[in-house]
């Protein structure tokens, strides 16, 4: 099994440090996403992998091979650029055939491979067209075919869907996912859009603005069990409440100023959880139940007043003001056309959540 491995890689640009001793491992055949805010260095990592930039220090491995100093045109890593970078003076056919022509394959071989590649991205019949006559989605598929035709070991995608509108984006994500599944090539997908990352990747890494990797894991792990407030906030929205930890026999509780004691799950071996320490609770808005009438069976209960309602179509978001002045976001799925209970502005509501549905964060 080949890995992509970045070992203690540092990169500065114009005196500004972008990456500092960063290490990263990606498994073969995976759809891997690198998620982070703009400017965090994720594109830099991509460019280092492609060979467009060279590292200041550190090493890059592709499997057993040290490719740190291998020039870009010799690497078995190909890129789909953000604005596709299709050659305007070449037809679609010539664009896709480019890397094969460099390798000096035979004319017949090139022809059959190109037509197959176009079929794979569902662009058969477009081979004589020029990039300027294609739509954004079509151009992107040409860029894909062009990069994949030489069967690289890794495909890098630099925010490829940034220029597409929402519906097209959703379709392309599915296509990309199916493509990767069929080819089993390692895809490294860089984006700042968490929706894209969550949808399409099998494993992802979150980077913060300082260029460090905050967390790595499957989308579900990252969403449900973030390790820091940054991750919790960056992926999806969440409520963060600060408090003090109390441990009594086997039950863990968090005391929040002005709100009282909350019952939380018993965590697995967290060394930093000393009784009395300061920590943060993260609760996802969809995990809070909002109701006008009181309910039974929940470990934690809060009272609040609705100050804002935003209708999202499939869900409604409520902003609720708590007793201590804090605000909580609550999502409720719009399950019914005509709900029995409708919540209005300025109403007093009950909020409930279970102790298993929170995450305890140190920082």
């Amino acid at each position, binding site marked *: 099994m080949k890995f992509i491995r970045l070992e203690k890689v540092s990169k500065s640009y114009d005196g500004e440090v972008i990456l500092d001793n960063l290490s990263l491992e990606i498994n073969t055949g995976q759809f891997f996403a690198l998620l982070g805010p703009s400017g965090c260095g994720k594109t830099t990592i991509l460019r280092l992998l492609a060979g467009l930039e060279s590292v200041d220090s550190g090493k890059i491995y592709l499997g057993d091979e040290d490719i740190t100093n291998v020039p870009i*045109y010799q690497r078995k890593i190909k890129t789909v650029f953000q604005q596709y970078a299709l050659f*305007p003076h070449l037809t679609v056919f010539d664009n896709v055939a480019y*890397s094969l022509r*460099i390798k000096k394959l035979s004319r017949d071989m090139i*022809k059959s491979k190109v*037509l197959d590649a176009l079929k794979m991205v569902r662009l*058969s019949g477009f081979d*004589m067209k020029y990039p300027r006559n294609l739509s954004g989605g079509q151009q992107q598929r040409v860029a894909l075919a062009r*990069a994949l035709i*030489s069967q690289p070991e890794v495909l890098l995608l630099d925010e490829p869907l940034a220029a597409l509108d929402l519906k097209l984006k959703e379709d392309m994500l599915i296509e990309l996912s199916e493509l990767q599944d069929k080819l089993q090539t390692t895809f490294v997908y860089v984006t700042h859009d968490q929706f894209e990352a969550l949808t399409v990747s099998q494993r992802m890494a979150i980077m913060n603005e300082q260029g460090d990797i905050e967390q790595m894991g499957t989308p579900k792990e990252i969403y449900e069990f973030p390790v820091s407030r940054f991750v919790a906030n960056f992926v999806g929205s969440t409520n963060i409440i600060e408090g003090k930890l109390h441990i009594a026999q086997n039950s863990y509780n968090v005391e929040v100023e002005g709100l009282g004691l909350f019952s939380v799950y018993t965590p697995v071996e967290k060394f930093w959880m000393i009784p009395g320490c300061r920590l943060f609770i993260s609760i996802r808005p969809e995990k809070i139940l909002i109701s006008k009438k009181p309910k039974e069976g929940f470990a934690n209960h809060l009272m609040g007043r609705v100050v804002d309602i935003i209708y999202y179509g499939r869900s409604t978001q409520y902003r609720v003001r708590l007793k201590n002045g804090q605000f909580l976001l609550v999502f409720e799925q719009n399950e019914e056309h005509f709900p029995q209970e409708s919540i209005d502005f300025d109403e007093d509501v009950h909020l409930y959540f279970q102790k298993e549905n929170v995450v305890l964060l140190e920082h």
Partner: protein
Amino acid sequence: MRLLNRIFSEEYPFVLSCPALLWQFVFLYIPFAILAIHSIVDYIPEIQSYVLTSVYYVQIFNSLYFKVILRSFFLAVLTAFICFLIAYPVAYYLAMRGPKKYKTFLLFSLILPSWTSLIVQVYAWFFLLEKNGFVSRTLQALKIISPSFHLLNNYFSILLGMVSCYLPFMILPIYAVLEKMDKRLLEASADLGADKYETFKRIVFPLSLPGVYAGVLLVFIPSFGEFAIPTLLGGSKYIFWGNVIVDKFLRSRDWRSGAALVIIGIMLPIFIMLVGYLVSKIRTAYQRAAYQQKTNGPKDYWT
């Protein structure tokens, strides 16, 4: 005030464009018309009227005037070619490889010599190359040439002058195109496996051709009509099209055949541009035809 407004709005667009068009007509198109008419008309005193004649054109093709035109044509081609050979690497270096901070400075220090009067540049070469001048005496001292060898007044000195005057006009358009080129295309090419040489051959050079074409136009056409450089640096040893025209119009006052020469001289560059235009039209038509074919098109398309 209302009138001014109407002039500047869409109601009377012609008012604003009039002066320029008028100028162009009066000082350019009408003179050419006059010249054209001059060249095909002859005044016969016996019958006191004008007749249409092609004698002046025929004269040109039969005589050494034709040689002159060919000579000018050849000089222009040579100049353009040598300028291209030197200008392309220079433009490439400035646009692609030069230090970013000084790019504009380097470019303009390159343009500076040509942005002085033609006279100054020509005289500079004249001064440099003349028999008792700096270069001659140095080369004589180094025993490379003999004391009677003339650096000036030959074809070589004319070419030197031509190239040095027109080189920047070839550099600028090529530089402009190379500079504006989307660098991401070059990255994509490298990513796909092409080294610098392949990338140049397949991407950079084809995309720079419009600039090359502009440069060739800017150099070829004026150098065809160049007369000062051959006169001053060639010492009247060679006669070019420009010289003949000067002679016809200023000295021998032979306007009719002079006009014919002028017309032929303009026709040449126009003809060349037309050819270029037609060639590009044919290419697009051919490509369109190839597209009409089915996917398994003719084998010779897949090169």
